[in-house]
């Protein structure tokens, strides 16, 4: 007698053994359903975001080295960074914001300046008892934490704006406590705020481009040569690794993407929030 055809249900098929596998097994399997290949240009542009933040951190450290070794007048650094910030601020407000918040902005700046001045005498002696090596190691680790948790524009679990900002502010506090005078410590803290709070805001608005990245990297590399030639080589090779090698590897490995979908997947529904 011919068997009845197997059906995918649980109440018929008595003629078949329980571990029977039909030909239709896994026919509903889907692979890479929502897959969109990312082009080399897109992935390289994405990598420039990391390069920008890395360069910002290095700029900050170079300014510290200049202040620490008295290679340049503190006033000189202060006025140049303030001038640049003012220029960027005006551009930012004209193109992306409204002028109406100007009063509020001024209030914030004044508040920061007053408190910065007030606390910088405490700051510059804060870690006198701790050895400089410890401070440098700590700052290095905190900068790494900052770079890992920084918001590069992707919604992933590791992104934490508050953690990355706190880490870098802590690092700059550590570094400014190595400086000779309270005025220098105050300047370094101001630079830190400019680099890590204000500059990312501006960079978010201007679209990333290769030209901007190139100019930025060359400027940083030039100033880095005044600090250390070896560091410049390391810096440039790191940049090449991040911005050229990594995107290439990413494109190469994209073909190994193998996401499996099937009837077992959890249906996605809008989770409702009654508080709204």
């Amino acid at each position, binding site marked *: 007698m011919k068997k009845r055809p197997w059906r995918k249900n649980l109440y018929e098929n008595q003629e078949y053994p329980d*571990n029977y596998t039909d030909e239709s097994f896994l026919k509903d399997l889907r692979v890479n359903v929502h897959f969109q290949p990312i082009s080399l240009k897109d992935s390289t542009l994405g990598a420039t975001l990391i390069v920008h933040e890395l360069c910002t951190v290095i700029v900050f450290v170079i300014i510290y080295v200049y202040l620490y070794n008295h290679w340049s007048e503190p006033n000189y650094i202060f006025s140049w960074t303030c001038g640049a910030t003012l220029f960027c601020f005006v551009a930012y407000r004209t193109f992306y914001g409204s002028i109406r918040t100007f009063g509020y902005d001024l209030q914030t700046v004044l508040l920061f300046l007053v408190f910065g001045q007030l606390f910088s005498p405490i700051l510059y002696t804060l870690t006198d008892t701790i050895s400089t090596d410890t401070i440098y190691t700590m700052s290095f680790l905190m900068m790494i934490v900052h770079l890992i948790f920084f918001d590069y524009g992707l919604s992933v679990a590791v992104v934490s704006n508050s953690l990355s900002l706190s880490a870098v502010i802590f690092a700059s506090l550590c570094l400014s406590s190595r400086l000779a005078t309270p005025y220098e410590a105050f300047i370094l803290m101001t630079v830190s705020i400019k680099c890590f709070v204000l500059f990312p805001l501006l960079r978010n608005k201007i679209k990333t481009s290769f030209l901007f990245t190139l100019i930025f990297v060359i400027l940083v590399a030039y100033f880095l040569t005044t600090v250390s030639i070896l560091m410049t080589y390391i810096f440039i090779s790191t940049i090449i690794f991040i911005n050229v090698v990594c995107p290439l590897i990413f494109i190469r490995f994209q073909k190994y993407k193998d996401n*499996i979908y099937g009837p077992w997947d*959890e249906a996605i529904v809008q989770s409702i929030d009654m508080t709204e």
Partner: protein
Amino acid sequence: MTRCICMVSDFFYPNIGGVEEHIFNLSQCLMSNGNKVVVITHSYGNRKGVRYMSNGLKVYYIPIKVMYNQCVLPTYFCNIPIIRYIYIRERVDIVHSHSAFSTLAHEGLLVGNLMGLKTVFTDHSLLGFCDVSSILINILLTMALSACNHCICVSHTGKENTVLRANTKIDNVSVIPNSVDTQMFHPIPELRSKDNVTIIVLSRMVYRKGIDLVIQIIEKICPKYPEINFLIGGDGPKRVLLEELREQRGFHNRVRLLGTVEHSEVKYVLNKGHIFLNCSLTEAYCMAIVEAVSCGLLVVSTNVGGIPEVLPKDLLYLTKPEVPELIKGIESALHVVKSGQFVCPYKLNLRVKGMYDWRNIASRVEKVYDLISFKKKRTLKQTFQCYLSSGVWPFLVVVALAHLMLIILDIFVPRENIDICRNYPSETRKQIKKD
């Protein structure tokens, strides 16, 4: 021949759910077929030690603290002495673990494999491949199944899922569904309201069961159809949302929340309704809808996972897991109820009876036991090779350490010193029945 089967799972009575019910019913039927069954689970509050349940089902509530979601901490070592003791004491032949979420089940499998017992694993749930938690559990499952003699899934979709997740040989995976006690879940039409139509929702109040959908449906259905009332049983983190909805929209007389419903009470709750609503977002085998149909209710359900395999299309209203589709399903069920065209509940009960029977399920599971009991006992090397085939080679360290612990235990707690326990006198029970 009498076998001794040891069911190991974190989930057992007094917890309520599909797995718990499965283990209990399966054990009962296996016992009535002349097998000896013991259950190992972790302690629930004051409930620790050895307990006997109906017909002498012996349950060991091991005194371990629960870590998260009714699961014990996955140490893989700490419970080896006590599990080994029980296996020897009860002369266990087959270790049958349940549910991939249960860490105790994985430990039971490991100890069973190393002691040379035959092992069976039943997977009760479906898991995706995308989020971190399922990836981790999939690794655990791969390790557990690589040395397991046989695996049982509760639906064909479940089998596909398990084979993909754990890389097992297809022939070692059987599909044996859950079942329902049609005697217990029988229709009591007197309990139904004559004037109103009652919709029953009975599930744990968690995201996976689609409570967010239920809330949106209630919000839309209640103002539209004044004759519909909701009766909702179950508890969980999402219950607050339902209560809030009731407060905000003033549905107090329309939506009744029962909280946790005892298993023995479920049939009375089901029989108060006309329509059963299941909004699960993923489900390997939905026991609730089978119970509802067995009580003669019209069932509206999402067509996720293994649900389309469970019952024939003419007994259910299957819809996509979306609010408008589900509402359409409810409306057509409502139309049938109002016009009085629905199938006689007793006939539904009979149909389900023809499809599902725990005794049939138990005999199929016994066939699996027969199949694996012929397999040769593995040598230590073969066991290790099995575990190595899972690809998670660091796990071998754990296996090796567990093996060493068993050797040490053999020296300090020799097998001869462990009392062999007496079997529950099932013969006398039969005699009493005869008298």
